């Protein structure tokens, strides 16, 4: 990927797209890469318009109504509903979610 100082006329190469797909855990077919790099480049060029705006001294928005995040008491509010939730799970056994072997 280009560096942060080289925003103008940025375009994403097929290598960039493959790297992003790996980061986002998305498998991508070889036939999809060219179209995706063209479209993502268009999107990045669209958002690059932001770089020209002077934002010195501007606080980034944290909440549109400037309200603080509310905290709740650290108290138990839900009871166990494992069977209900696991009814949607693709594979479970004895209350555990099954995944492919992760330790060789």
């Amino acid at each position, binding site marked *: 990927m280009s560096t942060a100082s080289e925003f103008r006329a940025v375009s994403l190469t097929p290598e960039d797209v493959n790297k992003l797909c790996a980061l986002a855990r998305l498998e991508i077919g070889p036939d999809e890469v060219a179209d995706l790099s063209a479209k993502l480049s268009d999107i990045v060029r669209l958002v690059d318009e932001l770089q020209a705006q002077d*934002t010195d001294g501007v606080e980034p928005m944290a909440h*549109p109504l400037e309200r603080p995040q509310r905290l709740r008491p650290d108290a138990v509010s839900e009871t166990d509903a494992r069977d209900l939730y696991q009814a949607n799970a693709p594979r479970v056994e004895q209350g555990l979610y099954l995944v*492919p072997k992760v330790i060789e």
Partner: protein
Amino acid sequence: MHDKTLTELSEGLAAKQFSARELTEHYLARIEQLDADLNAFVTVTAEQALAQADVADARRAGGDATPLTGIPIAHKDIFCTTGVRTSCGSRMLDNFVSPYSATVVARLEDAGAVMLGKTNMDEFAMGSSNETSYYGPVRNPWNLECVPGGSSGGSAAAVAAGLCSGATGTDTGGSIRQPAALTGLTGLKPTYGRASRYGMIAFASSLDQAGTLTRSASDAAHLMQAMAGFDAHDSTSLDDAVPDYLAELDSPWEQLRIGVPENFFDEGLDAENAAAVRESLDVFERLGATIKPLQLAHVHLSVPVYYVVAPAEASSNLSRYDGVRFGHRADDVDDLIDLYQRTRAEGFGAEVKRRILTGTYVLSAGYFDAYYLQAQKVRQLIAGDFHRAFAEVDLVAGPTTPTPAFRIGQKVDDPIQMYLNDIYTIGANLAGLPAMSIPCGFVDGLPVGLQLIAPHLMEGRLLKAAHRFQRETDWHRRVPERYA
């Protein structure tokens, strides 16, 4: 009965002109008969609807009714519904049966509303045409060759075709207002935090808000009255008191000052669409409002800000779809990484993938400050423009969309053209402001909308202005001939 507004149906139920069961059977029959072309519903819950209707009739007979008791509505399939599939328009959740209901759904159910089913939508609410749905495009009841807008396109088409009396929607960048404009409906996106986001499948959490698609402002007031309010389950829910929206509709009319952003009427806006909007402002002027031109200096940056903030939040929110706990899971995988990658490749459609990858890009190491932080700073500037405007005017008004409905397939392969549909609506989301679209005319037989934007928590002012406009005009009473 389907030509009546929700408000009129409520009066009819109260006057015992028909029962909730008769009304529900009527809408279910229309869905059965007419939805094959429209594709507005993903799931129809006929049995549950009739059971709810019987409960509503009993409640009415027992004198325990709210105005919504027995009113048949539909929910966008982004809202979780206990025991009913909640797909979010995605293959990823095609098999997901929610173990709980969204607060918005629960509140409408408590009020006695009858759920007819779940409406089609752009996948994960990412789209402006309803063409990104796993369940296929929704068609516009005004012209079946055209899109109904999106992402709440199924809700919009269902209400416009008289398949339900009103529907819920969500609006992250215009997803209620844009389809409302394109189908001749009244669409309300409330203040950020006014309605709970609990159980509403997350797209961009700092922008998402639940609202309504209805035939009139009065109908919207009825639904919002039940939907709005504090919810401890949503950490961004506002705990401000909910006003009596219905009482506000007909409260004495003040001299409204309406600001019109001149930069909303640039070369991107269709000339006839612009003319319809200008004429609707004349209606407000005849009602005694003062129309004042204004400039929103940074609003042209709304689309770039949105396409950093929304994909960034989406890439984070959608990381939960991994094939382990719920939803789609790929078969015959090699290892855990392969499970994630193939599950997500199979479960998500093209537009959702683009947004995830855009979000991954703008959040990646070395890019965060230049994209996400810069976008949140420009977002502050855009919000500041609105706050300054509201020091001088009571409402901001302009077009909802640049053009009337476009043809199915016309923009689907050009994301940038699709994104520009939301150029006028995104600002209200970025600033967390309540906004509406109301029907204000037709261009080539297709409806167009007037957008009204109000200061934070001023939904009552919006609804009242829209209601007054709808007493002077009949654009909102027009129905497509095929569905009359």
